């Protein structure tokens, strides 16, 4: 383990990507992910990598598409309005079975919204990062160290399943500094025999494509892709459970809001309320097995988000009516306070304990 240093989440993500073997970054400036691109622009030229500032988020994601098609580890980063612009390219990446890493340092929306931290892009990330039937892998770190730890895995799984992966963070995590250790990863990049980097006279031409004009062919390809998604849902769910075993009230929160929820759970325990926390780490696949299990034992489930309530849909689907599911959130860039969340827990405990 290398020495711990203080690093901003944005910079830590960038360095972790470099350690994971990424040498191709394409981006467009936007607050609050700025430091990530700036870090890349400083580091990439020194290690023979590519940092390219594109003319738009649209161009940036398509440069990622080209680089990924050519077989290298490629990434881009942005914040909410920029991810909307990238959504076209993400759909094409998914439809072309191309791996890549996309980072969303979320800010308030809709529209230009604001620049303060938000989690209002959950639906976009997990349900509709673009048009068509498809999913991308979505990971939600809650600390700067976890931002680092998830990056290499996100690249690996993107390569393994040949699909885009996203780190869904927010302005708070991107801007804050925490102690972090970034070890040099032992990177083994997989062979990509499908890549379009010249057939060298040794094989037929490779084609990277998402167009299938015959509906039967397209249906088959999408159905096959969904079989892959089924495997991922069965094997790749990630979450952390904190004090849930005996909990009457289980909170479900990810990323920044999970930190606030955790503080509120600690305070509730001090008051004698049996509260616990499930923190989804993979948002797609959603850790529905763990949440469903909590539905068997908890009296109440409370979802906490920095939005008007988006992940709560998935929580309700997983719990499937086994116990009441309620929601507390702040939005528009407001970070909820532990005291606010504690009040919600107390309200629920009043009825349940």
């Amino acid at each position, binding site marked *: 383990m290398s020495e711990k240093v203080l690093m901003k989440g944005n910079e830590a993500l960038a360095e972790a990507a470099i350690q994971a073997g990424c040498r*191709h970054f*394409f981006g467009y400036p936007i607050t609050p992910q700025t430091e990530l691109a700036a870090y890349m622009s400083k580091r990439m030229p020194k290690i023979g990598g*590519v940092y*390219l500032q*594109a*003319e*738009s988020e*649209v*161009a*940036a994601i*398509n*440069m*990622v*598409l*080209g*680089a*990924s*098609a*050519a*077989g*290298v580890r*490629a990434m881009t980063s942005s914040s909410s309005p920029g991810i909307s612009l990238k959504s*076209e*390219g993400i759909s*094409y990446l998914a439809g*072309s079975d191309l791996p890549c890493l996309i980072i969303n340092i979320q800010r308030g929306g809709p529209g230009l919204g604001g620049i303060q931290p938000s989690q209002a892009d959950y639906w976009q990330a997990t349900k509709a990062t673009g048009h068509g039937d498809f999913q991308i892998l979505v990971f939600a770190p809650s600390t700067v160290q976890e931002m680092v730890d998830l990056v290499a895995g996100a690249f690996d799984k993107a390569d393994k399943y040949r699909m885009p992966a996203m780190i869904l963070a927010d302005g708070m995590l991107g801007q804050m500094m925490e102690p972090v250790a970034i070890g040099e990863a032992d990177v083994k990049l997989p062979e990509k025999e499908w890549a*379009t*980097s*010249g*057939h*060298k*006279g040794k094989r037929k*031409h*490779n*084609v*990277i*494509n*998402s*167009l299938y004009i015959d509906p039967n062919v397209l249906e088959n390809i999408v159905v096959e892709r969904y079989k892959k998604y089924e495997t991922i849902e069965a094997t790749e769910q990630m979450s952390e459970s904190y004090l849930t075993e005996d909990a009457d009230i289980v909170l479900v929160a990810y990323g920044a809001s999970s930190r606030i929820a955790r503080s509120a759970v600690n305070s509730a325990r001090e008051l004698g309320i049996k509260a616990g926390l499930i923190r989804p780490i993979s948002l797609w696949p959603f850790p529905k097995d763990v949440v469903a299990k909590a539905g068997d034992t908890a009296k109440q489930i409370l979802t906490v988000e920095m939005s008007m309530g988006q992940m709560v849909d998935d929580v309700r689907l997983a719990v499937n009516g086994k116990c009441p599911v309620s929601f507390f959130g702040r939005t528009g860039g407001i970070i909820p306070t532990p005291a606010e969340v504690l009040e919600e827990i107390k309200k629920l405990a009043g009825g349940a304990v």
Partner: protein
Amino acid sequence: MAVVFEKTKGLTDAPLHYCPGCTHGIVHRLVAEVMEELGVLDKAVGVAPVGCAVFNYDYFSCDMVQAPHGRAQAVATGIKRAVPENVVFSYQGDGDLAAIGTAETVHAATRGENITVIFINNAIYGMTGGQMAPTSLPNQITQTTPYGRDTNYAGYPIRVCEMLSTLDGVALAQRVSVDTPKNVMNAKKAIKKAFENQIAGKGYSIVEVLSTCPTNWGLTPTEALTWLRDNMIPYYPLGVYKDKEDVK
């Protein structure tokens, strides 16, 4: 028996889907022959557009990537930056390159991206059935300018080579036509130069090819060639608009 002519190895055996009299087929062949002659088929990667040429990933025998509408040069940029040894070209129509993809075109050009761009200008959207293109001529009748392109209302056509020639990153901007055998030969020379420029690391090269669309122009193939000569060439004069070698 001695072989006196062979189909280029740069094309696959897939039958082309283009309409009778369309000049896409000629340009495909020229690009494929040039790549074969330069010996780069094994390291060439082409980028297909959205538009009539969308299926060209099945026609060119080199590695191919199909890009979102207008984004071919951003995709080509990604490929070239990832593996600079590759010879990377995009092949795009006027809607793809000069409407929805204008930003990608201008910025790839001004970055001096070391790629080759083949631009088919036929003054109309072919794939979607004949709508006004950014290069449709004043007064030209299309599906969406049924009374003719009114420049007071719909604005003016874009002269892409002239526009890009002002950019320092451009090594070659040349407009050619494939309406006569002589012009076909000239077009091939230009395309070859555009690939040679890339191999020599000279930067962005674009060849604009004036092309016909008999189906959507509502003309026979021969009438279409005449229409091109009478209407397009006067508005889009053939020639070299930028050649870095001249600048020295």
